[in-house]
């Protein structure tokens, strides 16, 4: 009972299979990112999109397979806290980049 309670939350719910799957997928995505840049011959915009997509997918892989976040009720509040944090980061980073990159344009008006 005690052990089951500990397993139900946060990082304690993995199995050998989920860790191996997560690890293989992570290595694959890391290799894709590095190969895109080191291989060359790809247009710059394609590289930026490729790196961003691979990075975002890899972050979700880590969250799912290593930190075991999903839609289950056991980790509902962890997911809630993460979603709230992502909203803050979106406003924070997105707002900073938006304002600073359009600074010249704004100052001319």
């Amino acid at each position: 009972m005690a052990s089951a309670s500990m397993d139900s939350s946060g990082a304690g719910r993995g199995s050998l299979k989920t860790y191996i799957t997560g690890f293989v997928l992570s290595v694959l995505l890391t290799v894709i990112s590095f190969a895109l840049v080191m291989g060359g011959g790809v247009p710059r915009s394609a590289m930026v999109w490729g790196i961003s997509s691979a990075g975002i997918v890899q972050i979700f892989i880590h969250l799912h397979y290593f930190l075991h976040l999903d839609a289950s009720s056991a980790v509902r509040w962890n997911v809630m806290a993460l979603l709230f944090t992502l909203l803050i980061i979106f406003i924070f980073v997105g707002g900073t980049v938006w304002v600073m990159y359009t600074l010249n344009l704004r100052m001319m008006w």
Partner: protein
Amino acid sequence: MMTTDVKTMNWMSGESEHVDSVEIQTFGFWVYLMSDLVLFSALFATFAVIGHNYAGGPSGKDLFHLPYLFGETMFLLVSSAACGFTMLAVHRGRKALVLLGLAVTFLLGLGFITMEIHEFYGMIISGNGPERSAFLSAFFTLVGTHGTHVSFGLIWMAVMMGQVAAKGLTRPVRSRLMRLSMFWHFLDIVWVGVFSVVYLMGVI
């Protein structure tokens, strides 16, 4: 009445935790990780804004060596996986396996931080320290903050190896190991952002 008092006392003392307290502590630690994520996002935003101001100095193209960085990344990724396998041993109560897993995780993490310090040292002695340009200030702050987190994680891991050896896999020790593994996986997630945004985007 009596029972309630005892339960409260145990809960307060921290050593013999109530069943619910492990979940509360795990969630509390998760909230800390989320606040840490906001800290890192501030450093990422700073890097995004001033990361292209080279002040006539070197850019990422001149400084970053991708095969070296790939090795560094693999150290941290394999370390994160080793940490996951260690947690499986924790749940099965295999003390010797847990100690071995923690040692492997620790050494891989040490390999990562050693490579990072070596990279920083090489940049600083060739005159490309944080004072060289806005780009390098932002670079050293962001990557250095991550490296500091990893270093503190290593200290924590060493302490936990001592606790596992001395106390065994008691309930409080297992609960601490679980939070350590969350911290370690979290740092690997932040590193995915660092190598994508700072290094790979920096050389193209």
